[in-house]
């Protein structure tokens, strides 16, 4: 007879910013079912937004997420600009270039952050240290342009709040030039390493069908061969004027998701370089005073996928309804199929592979029988994952690393 064990993971973890709670049902080592419980970090932002005026809401939604902290304000201002007639006709070209640069810089630092965490989860702490080391200059550039490492406060309805200074452009270019060899190194270190391949291939697979049914978005969907990217499908900023590619992989496993994100780093660098070369001089703000009644939808390709904002205005200076749907909302739900069928030592990396604002493994209780409860901390679960990698390394190299 099979013996079902419940392994709760969560809800708090200091590594990432959003608490979620996963309850894994395991038989032996195999995960047979999963319950996902969220809401620990629900701050009522949609309700709060109804009490702020349109200018303040950009600051409010910036605080939804500290990592993709320009995606939410960007989607929000696009929604308001949808009511006003559209970004392309409203916002000065220079402002749209600046928006695109910020959006892509953010993608670079977010993907590097994920790469580091993924490395840590499977026991490649060198990848973790290096990814975060190379993320620092990106944050320095943010500080240089916006004054902040996160929560940039750049977006406003009708334009951007700060200009990029001419003397900063060579420094940005220099940062990108220095980042490129680092991305080359990561590409080699991850894609050519037999242990990483063995560890991540075939793990946490999402099929194309599952991606469609669970309405998964972003790199998680693109790793399963679903060709969607808001930047191309409904271009905002200046993406339609630039030369870049949507990265698609077919396998849908953790390895494919890693590859998509690493290759997207190249595209982001390429996009920013073009922006810095082409950026025209001119105004950066259309100076919008009033928002007429109506409804608008704005969406951007956040580092994790489509970020969706819906605004309903009744002509006052506050939104009547503001619906926010972050990409992780769809992606985290898909863990219901992604993690089931795998082993418990793969659960950490599988749950992390959708790059959720994932924040879970702080306390773990392994329950064998109701009266026999063993409490482990989150580190134990990561250790389990790291041990598996170490076993594989020993098998490959015949010695302990």
């Amino acid at each position: 007879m099979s013996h079902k064990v419940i392994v709760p993971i969560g809800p708090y973890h200091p590594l990432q910013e959003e608490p979620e709670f996963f309850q894994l049902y395991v038989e032996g080592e195999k995960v047979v079912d999963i319950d996902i419980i969220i809401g620990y970090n629900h701050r009522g932002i949609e309700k709060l937004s109804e009490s702020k005026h349109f200018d303040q809401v950009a600051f409010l939604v910036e605080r939804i997420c500290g990592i993709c902290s320009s995606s939410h304000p960007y989607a929000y201002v696009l929604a308001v600009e949808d009511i006003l007639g559209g970004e392309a006709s409203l916002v000065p070209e220079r402002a749209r270039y600046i928006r695109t640069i910020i959006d892509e810089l953010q993608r670079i630092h977010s993907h590097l952050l994920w790469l580091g965490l993924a490395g840590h989860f499977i026991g490649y702490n060198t990848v973790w240290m290096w990814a975060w080391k190379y993320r620092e200059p990106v944050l320095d550039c943010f500080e240089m342009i916006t004054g902040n490492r996160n929560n940039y406060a750049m977006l406003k309805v009708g334009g951007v709040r700060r200009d990029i200074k001419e003397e900063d452009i060579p420094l940005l270019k220099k940062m990108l030039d220095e980042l490129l060899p680092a991305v080359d190194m990561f590409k080699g270190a991850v894609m050519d390493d037999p242990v990483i391949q063995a560890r991540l291939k075939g793990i946490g697979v999402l099929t194309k069908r599952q991606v469609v049914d669970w309405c998964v978005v972003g790199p998680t969907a693109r790793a399963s061969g679903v060709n969607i990217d808001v930047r191309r499908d409904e271009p905002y900023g200046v993406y339609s004027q630039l030369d870049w590619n949507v990265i698609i992989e077919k396998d849908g496993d953790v390895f494919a998701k890693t590859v998509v994100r690493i290759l997207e780093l190249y595209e982001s660098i390429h996009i920013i370089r073009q922006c810095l070369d082409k950026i025209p001089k001119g105004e950066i703000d259309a100076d919008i005073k009033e928002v007429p009644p109506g409804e608008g939808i704005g969406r951007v390709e956040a580092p994790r996928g489509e970020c969706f904002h819906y605004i309903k205005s009744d002509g006052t200076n506050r939104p009547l309804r503001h619906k926010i749907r972050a990409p992780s909302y769809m992606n985290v739900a898909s863990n219901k199929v992604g993690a089931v069928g795998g082993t418990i030592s793969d659960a950490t990396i599988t749950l992390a592979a959708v790059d959720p604002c994932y924040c879970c493994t702080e306390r773990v209780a392994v329950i064998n029988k109701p009266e026999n409860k063993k409490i482990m901390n989150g580190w134990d679960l990561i250790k389990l994952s790291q041990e598996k990698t170490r076993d594989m390394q020993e098998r490959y190299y015949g010695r302990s690393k």
Partner: protein
Amino acid sequence: MDVKEQIKEKLAAKILEWQEPSAKRIYLTLNKEDAFEAAKLLFKDLGFRFSTASATHTSLGFEIIYHFSFDKTGEIYSIRVFIEDQKHPEIDSLAPLFPGAEWIEREIWEMLGINFKGHPNLKRLLLADDWPQDNYPLRQNHES
């Protein structure tokens, strides 16, 4: 025949109102009984992706908008339905059609108190377990 014409042809008289307020934004108003069929047409037959749903409480009742994204053209087709019953608002769940609708329906259920008939797992998503029953934070008359 492009999707816009197919939708117009298949749903025909069921479309109460057709709005295109800006480029790539299409809003269709339907009776709430027809929402399931329309969602099935868009999601299953025409290959739309479900983005999310947004529900609003007004003095006239509840408005739910299902946002479907057609990624080939970058258009968003939003199906709008009204539920006039303020006491026991109810609508068919889309979750049996595709699991991607499960979470958002749970959220609308707990935030606005709209019952989704046929939902496989209608329980709280975001609100705490000790949040009082029949207290819906996104309703207009909610006292915070």
